[in-house]
């Protein structure tokens, strides 16, 4: 056998084997990239998201939410919560302000969508269900609903209950 270096056949076989190995590596990288793109908000702002939802939900439960009204201008969307102690949620592209606390997004490409999704449903025995969602956009796209901020409230209607029946922005 000639031991002076590669023959063309040996070189071709080596390239083929290396290509297979590199394809495997590419597959790993591709799957990592997909997960990172879809979950980037969730991983960077996971704690912040949990804190916002918890604080607002607890406030709605303890202060007995009894009405909701949404208004929007060029800079921000304001959600008025009619409760024992009235409060507002202010939504701008980069932050949410609730109860004198500002929650800012840390993820570089993430923004809050000021177009809030709202739904009111009457249930039986005077109960009702309200859900509203503040979508989170990554590069201006709502890639997943996992990182959206969804709030739910179920209550019993009384004489002063006042909710918007529907809302679109």
């Amino acid at each position: 056998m000639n031991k002076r270096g590669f023959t063309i056949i040996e070189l071709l076989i080596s390239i083929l084997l290396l290509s297979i190995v590199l394809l495997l590596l590419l597959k790993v990288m591709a799957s990592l990239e997909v997960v990172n793109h879809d979950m980037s908000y969730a991983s960077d702002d996971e704690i912040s998201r949990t804190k916002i939802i918890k604080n607002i939900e607890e406030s709605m439960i303890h202060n007995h939410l009894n009405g909701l009204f949404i208004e929007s201008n060029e800079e921000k969307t304001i959600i008025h919560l009619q409760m024992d102690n009235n409060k507002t949620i202010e939504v701008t592209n980069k932050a949410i302000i609730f109860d004198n606390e500002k929650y800012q997004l840390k993820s570089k490409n993430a923004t809050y969508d000021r177009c809030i999704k709202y739904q009111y449903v009457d249930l039986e025995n005077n109960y009702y269900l309200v859900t509203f969602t503040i979508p989170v956009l990554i590069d201006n796209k709502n890639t997943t609903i996992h990182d959206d901020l969804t709030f739910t409230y179920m209550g019993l209607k009384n004489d002063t209950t006042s909710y918007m029946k529907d809302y679109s922005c």
Partner: protein
Amino acid sequence: MKRGFALLETIIVITFVAVSLLMLYGTFTNMIEKKERSLMYDDVSHIYELYYLKEYLLLGGIDDSSSIKKLTCDDFNYSSCSILFKEFSILELYLVPYGYEVDTNYSFYSYYQTLSNDEEYDYLLVARFLIEDRDNYASIGVNIHE
């Protein structure tokens, strides 16, 4: 005198590299799965949805049971239950006695293994949500002997 690699040597090196990369692939895949799974379990929005569902369920009362019970809208005394299931994207709802040994036949087995038993409840209300074609799980403690 050898001046370069022989084919055999090249193949040995490539095999070694391939095995190393395959091991890396396995590790990465596990990490990705764990990360994805952690995002599918106990989302704070789902916990609050379950809280309201629990309150609604308790309005009608719950019968004591010593084994796992799959809850359907027949177990609620209100017809609005189906609206709540639909709005919350709940596919399955279980009432699991505290400390119960769940077997692998249940869809929430993997999720249940991740829960700690630090807090004592009479039951655990476990829900399977379908979000973007993926199973999400969340649970909340229920006390009926208060």
